[in-house]
C-alpha cells in the first residue's frame, strides 16, 4: 500500500452569500493520479485554492505528507512540495526556459549571474522527464504544450511531490497530450501524486486511478476509474435536484419563419463549421462546458471577432458582418457575459446608457436631444421594471439584475430583433434571475428571437425551446425542450475522437 500523501476531511469554505464548499473529502496516495470532476462552479477550483493556500478554509482538516497543515500562501505550499499548474500558465514570455524555471532561485558567481549553471541543471531536469527543450529557448517562442512541460519541470525542480494539474490539456494538441501523459506516468513511477482536473472523459479513463466528483460544493463520491462507467460519472456530476421548473415543450410554433440562418461559420480553433437556424419567437440555448466555443460563436456572429468563413442570413437576406456595426444594423444585439466590461458604461446614467447604441436617432445636427432621450429611457425603465431611483442614476449604483435590464433596454431601443444573451444571469441573485427569465419570455412573445448562452444547465432547461450543445468548437448535439440533463451533458463531453470509457 503506497503512502497517503494528502487527506482532506470535512473542508468547508464560504464566501459572502455562497457556501462554496460543504464538508468535502479528498485524499491522494503517492504515485496516484486522482481526477477531480464536476460541472462548472462545482467547487473544484475552490478546493484546490484551499489546498494551495490561496484561500483559507473555514472548517476541516488537511493532512499533507503525514502532518496537519494550514497554508497561508502559495509559497508555504510550495515549500511543502505542493505545486499547482494553472490553466492560465504563469510565466515570463520574454525570458528563456531556464530563466523561467529558476526565477527567484538564480545561481550567481560573485556579482554576476551564472546562467550556464542553471542551463545545465535545466537540461538535467528536462532530460529526466524526457522533454527535449533547449533551456536557452525564449519561453514565448514555445508552443503551449511545451510551456506546460516547462511548468511541470519547474515544479519538479522545486522537489514537488504533489502536483495539481488544472485542465492541462485544454490547449494541447493530441501529440502533446500523449507526451504529457507519458511524463505523468514517469512521475507516477517516481512516487509523485497528481490531482487531475479535466472535463474530458476519455482522458480521465486513460490516465487516472480514481475519480472524485463534486457537485454544488458538496462531495458526491469517489470511484475507482477502471471499475466505473462514463454514465456513472456523468450521473454523479449532474444528479442534483432542480429548483427551476424546466420547460417541457417548445413554445415556439413549428411553422415560425426563420429569422437567422448561419452556415458553416468558422473562426479560429473555437468555432468550427457551425451551422444553425433561429426562428422568430424562439429561445435557442447554447449549452456546453466552459471553453466549448459558445461565446466565440456569438462574437464571430456579431462581428466582434474576425471569422474565416461562413454565411449569415437575416430574414432571408444575406448580410456581410465585418464588425459589430454591421451586426447592429442587421438588427442583432449582443449582451456580453462580461457586463461591466462590454455591456454598460458604468460611469454614465441609465438614460445615457439606454440610447448608447442608437445615439444617432436621438441627435440633431449638433446636439443630442435630451428630452427625447429621457422620455424613451423612462418608458423602458417602466416597461422592464428596472429598479432605479431615477433615469439620471449612474449605472454603477444599480444591482446586477437592473444593470442587465439597462443593457436589454439599450438593444430594444435600437430595434434589435435578434438578441444574443451571453450568460444573462451571471452574478445576479436568484430573485432577479427569475425576473430576467420572465423578461426573456415576454420578449419572445413580442416576436423577438433570442439566443441564450449559458453554462448553467437548469437555466438552459428552463429557458430553451431548443438546445444546441457544443464541445471543442463544434455543435455536437441538438435537443428539444424537455430533454434530460444527462443527454445534454453527454453531448457536451463528445470530443471528436471519443473512445469508450
Amino acid at each position, binding site marked *: 500500500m503506497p503512502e497517503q500523501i494528502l487527506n482532506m476531511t470535512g473542508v468547508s469554505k464560504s464566501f459572502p452569500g455562497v457556501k462554496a464548499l460543504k464538508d468535502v473529502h479528498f485524499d491522494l496516495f503517492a504515485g496516484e493520479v486522482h481526477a477531480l470532476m464536476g460541472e462548472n462552479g462545482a467547487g473544484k477550483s475552490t478546493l484546490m485554492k484551499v489546498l494551495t493556500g490561496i484561500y483559507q478554509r473555514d472548517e476541516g482538516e488537511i493532512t499533507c505528507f503525514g502532518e496537519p497543515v494550514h497554508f497561508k500562501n502559495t509559497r508555504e505550499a*510550495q515549500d511543502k512540495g505542493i505545486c499547482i499548474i494553472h490553466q492560465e500558465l504563469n510565466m515570463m514570455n520574454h525570458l528563456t526556459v531556464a530563466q523561467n524555471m529558476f526565477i527567484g532561485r538564480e545561481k550567481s558567481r560573485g556579482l554576476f549571474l551564472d546562467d550556464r549553471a542553471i542551463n545545465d541543471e535545466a537540461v538535467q531536469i528536462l532530460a529526466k522527464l524526457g*522533454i527535449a527543450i533547449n533551456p536557452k529557448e*525564449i519561453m514565448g517562442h514555445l508552443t503551449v504544450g511545451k510551456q506546460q512541460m516547462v511548468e511541470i519541470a519547474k515544479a519538479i525542480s522545486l522537489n514537488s511531490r504533489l502536483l495539481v494539474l488544472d485542465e492541462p490539456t485544454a490547449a494541447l494538441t493530441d501529440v502533446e497530450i500523449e507526451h504529457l501523459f507519458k511524463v505523468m506516468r514517469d512521475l507516477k513511477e517516481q512516487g509523485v501524486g497528481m490531482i487531475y482536473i479535466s472535463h474530458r472523459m476519455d482522458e480521465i479513463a486513460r490516465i487516472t486511478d480514481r475519480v472524485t466528483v463534486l457537485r454544488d460544493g458538496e462531495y458526491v463520491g469517489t470511484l475507482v476509474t477502471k471499475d466505473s462507467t462514463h454514465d456513472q460519472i456523468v450521473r454523479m456530476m449532474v444528479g442534483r435536484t432542480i429548483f427551476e421548473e424546466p420547460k417541457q415543450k417548445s413554445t415556439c410554433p413549428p411553422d415560425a419563419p426563420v429569422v437567422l440562418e448561419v452556415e458553416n461559420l468558422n473562426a479560429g480553433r473555437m468555432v468550427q463549421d457551425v451551422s444553425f437556424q433561429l426562428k422568430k419567437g424562439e429561445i435557442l440555448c447554447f449549452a456546453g462546458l466552459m471553453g466549448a466555443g459558445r461565446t466565440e460563436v456569438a462574437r464571430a456572429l456579431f462581428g466582434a471577432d474576425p471569422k474565416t468563413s461562413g454565411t449569415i442570413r437575416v430574414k432571408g437576406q444575406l448580410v456581410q458582418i465585418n464588425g459589430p456595426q454591421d451586426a447592429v444594423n442587421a438588427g442583432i444585439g449582443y449582451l456580453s457575459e462580461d457586463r461591466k466590461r462590454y455591456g454598460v458604461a458604468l460611469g454614465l446614467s441609465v438614460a445615457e446608457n439606454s440610447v448608447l447604441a442608437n445615439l444617432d436617432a436621438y441627435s440633431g445636427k449638433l446636439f443630442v436631444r435630451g428630452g427625447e432621450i429621457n422620455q424613451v429611457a423612462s418608458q423602458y425603465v417602466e416597461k422592464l421594471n428596472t429598479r432605479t431611483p431615477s433615469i439620471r442614476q449612474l449605472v454603477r449604483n444599480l444591482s446586477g439584475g437592473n444593470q442587465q435590464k439597462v443593457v436589454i433596454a439599450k438593444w430594444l431601443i435600437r430595434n434589435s430583433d435578434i438578441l444574443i444573451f451571453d450568460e444573462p444571469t451571471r452574478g445576479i441573485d436568484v430573485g432577479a434571475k427569475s425576473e430576467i427569465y420572465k423578461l426573456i419570455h415576454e420578449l419572445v412573445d413580442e416576436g423577438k428571437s433570442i439566443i441564450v448562452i449559458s453554462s448553467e444547465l437548469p437555466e438552459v432547461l428552463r429557458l430553451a425551446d431548443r438546445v444546441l450543445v457544443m464541445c471543442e468548437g463544434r455543435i455536437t448535439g441538438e435537443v428539444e425542450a424537455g430533454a434530460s440533463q444527462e443527454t445534454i451533458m453527454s453531448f457536451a463531453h463528445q470530443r471528436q475522437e471519443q473512445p469508450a470509457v
Partner: protein
Amino acid sequence: MNVLSKKPAAGEEMAKQGLAGNQRLYALVAMILIYILFAVFGRNFFSFETAVNILDASYYIGFLAIGVTFVIITGGIDLSIGTVAMCSAMIGGVAWEKWGLPFTAGLVLILVSGALFGLLNGTLVSRLKLPPFIATLGTMMVSLGISSIVSKVQTVNFPSRTSEEGWFKSVFSKVQLPSGAMLPTGAILLLAVLLIAFVVLNKTKIGRYTFAIGSNEEAVRLSGVNVVYWKTIPYIISGLCAGMAGIAYASTYTTVVPGAGQGFELDAIAGVVIGGTSLSGGVGSVFGTLIGVMIMSILRIGLPSMDLQPHYQKLFTGIVVIIAVLMDISQQKKR
C-alpha cells in the same frame, strides 16, 4: 512525439539576441544609412569634427536614455529624468558655488540627489502602487520646484575651462590633444557607462528581474521574489543616470538655469523607443537605446548641412519614432 523531440536550434540565436534583436538591427542599419546620406549630400558633414559633434549632441540625452531604458523594460515610465537631471546639477552647483563645498563633493552630491529622486519614484511606484506615469509626473514637478527654491531662482555657473577646476571640462566634456583635435572624453565616459549598464542588464540579478517584472510581474511575485524591492532598483538606476546627465549637461553648457529640463525626458524616451525597447515591457537593450539617441543627433547635426533648419530634426525624429513603434507592433502581432 516527434514535435517534442525535434532538435531545438532556431531559438538559441534568438535567445542571445533577445526579442529586441531584430529592431535593434534595423535601427543600426537606419543609423548608418542616414549617416551615409548626409555624408554624400551634406556640405562638410563627413569629418572627424562632425562626428565629435554628433557624439557631443548625444551626450547628456544618452545618459538619460540609458537610465530610463531600465524603467521602460519593467513596463514603467520615468517622466522625471529631465528635470531631475537639471535639479541635481543645480543642487550640486549651488553647494559648490554658494555653500562653499569642494567641487568634487558637489559632483558627488549631484549623483546622490539623482539617485534619491530615483528612490522616491521607485518607492511611489513599487511600494505605494502609484501608476509610474503619475508618480514620475509628480516627481518632475517636485524637482522643478526644488531647483528653483535651492537656487533662489538664480543661474549657476559651472567652472569654465580656464578656471581652477578647469579639469572638469577636460574630464566630462572634451580635451584638446597635442595635435589640436578635440578628444570627446565625455562621449568615452558615456560609452563606459553604456558597457556597465549592459553588464548590469544582462549579467546580474538586477537585470534579470528587470526583464522578468516587465514580462510578467505576477508570475515573478508568485515565484516568491520580493518584487517591491526589485522594482524600485530600476528607478534608482534611472535617477542615478539622470545625475550623470546633469554633470554632462553642466560640463557641456557651463550654465545651469533654474527650472530647466522639461522635454529632455521625451527626447530620451524617443531614443529608447527607436532602439527597440518595448513600452509594454519585457524587451529592450541599452545598445539599441544609444543607437536611437545617435539617430536623433545625426539628424540634428546633419539637417543644417543640407540647408534644412535644425527644427526639421523634430519633424524627422517624430517620423522615426512612429515608424519604430509601428515596427514593434507588427512584430508583436506576428507572434
